[in-house]
C-alpha cells in the first residue's frame, strides 16, 4: 500500500513527530511504500537543520534525513507555514533578503498542492498532530 503522512506536531514539544517516525519505519518494514511526508503547522520546524538537541535526545531532523535517504522518501514542508515560522531554504532566504537559511535537501519547501497530491495519490494519509 501507498501511505503518506501529514505531521502537524511541534518537533520537541509534542510526541507526534516521533510517532510518525515509528509509523513510517513500521510501514517500510512491512513492504509498504511511503509516498510523501508532509510537514505543516508547527511541524515545519522539523525541517530546520539548525536544531541542536542534547546528545542523549532524539534528533528528529536527522532521523528523517536518514530515513529519507535510505528509502528515497519525499519530505515536503509547507512553504507558507514554514516562512512565517522562520524556516527557509537558500533561495527563499535570498528572495526575502534574509541573512541565513536553515532548510536543505532532503527536505524541500512547496505549496499545499503537494499535500493534496499526497492525499489523492496515496491509499491512506495518516495525520500525526
Amino acid at each position: 500500500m501507498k501511505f503518506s503522512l501529514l505531521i502537524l506536531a511541534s518537533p520537541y514539544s509534542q510526541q507526534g513527530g516521533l510517532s510518525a517516525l515509528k509509523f513510517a519505519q513500521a510501514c517500510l518494514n512491512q513492504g509498504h511504500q511511503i509516498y510523501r511526508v508532509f510537514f505543516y503547522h508547527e511541524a515545519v520546524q522539523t525541517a530546520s537543520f539548525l536544531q541542536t538537541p542534547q546528545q542523549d535526545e532524539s534528533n528528529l531532523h536527522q532521523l528523517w534525513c536518514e530515513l529519507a535517504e535510505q528509502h528515497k522518501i519525499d519530505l515536503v514542508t509547507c512553504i507558507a507555514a514554514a516562512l512565517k515560522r522562520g524556516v527557509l531554504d537558500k533561495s527563499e532566504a535570498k528572495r526575502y533578503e534574509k541573512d541565513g537559511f536553515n532548510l536543505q535537501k532532503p527536505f524541500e519547501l512547496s505549496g499545499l498542492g503537494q499535500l493534496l497530491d499526497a492525499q489523492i495519490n496515496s491509499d491512506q494519509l495518516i495525520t500525526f498532530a
Partner: protein
Amino acid sequence: MTLHLIQRSPFSNSALKDCLNIIDSQDSILLMEDGVYGLQHSLMQQTKLTAYALQEDMTARGLTSKNSIKEIDYCEFVNLCSQHQHVISWY
C-alpha cells in the same frame, strides 16, 4: 469503515468525546500518545466498540489494559490503517 486515532487525553481535550459522539458501530478506535489515558476514562470502560491501544505508548506511561481494549504494536497499527477505508485523527 473508519479507524479513529485518538491522540489526546480525554481528561483535558474533547478528542475522544467528539469522536464517540459520531462514531459508527462498524468503526474502530485506536488510543495512542496521550490518547492512551482514555484507558482510565469511564467513556472507554463502557464501550462496546472495537478498541485498540498502542502498547508502546501505554508502557511508556505505566498503563495496563483493564478491559476488552486490545494492545497492539506499530506493525498492527499499520495493518489496521490498511484495512480501513478512512483513518481520521482526533487531537
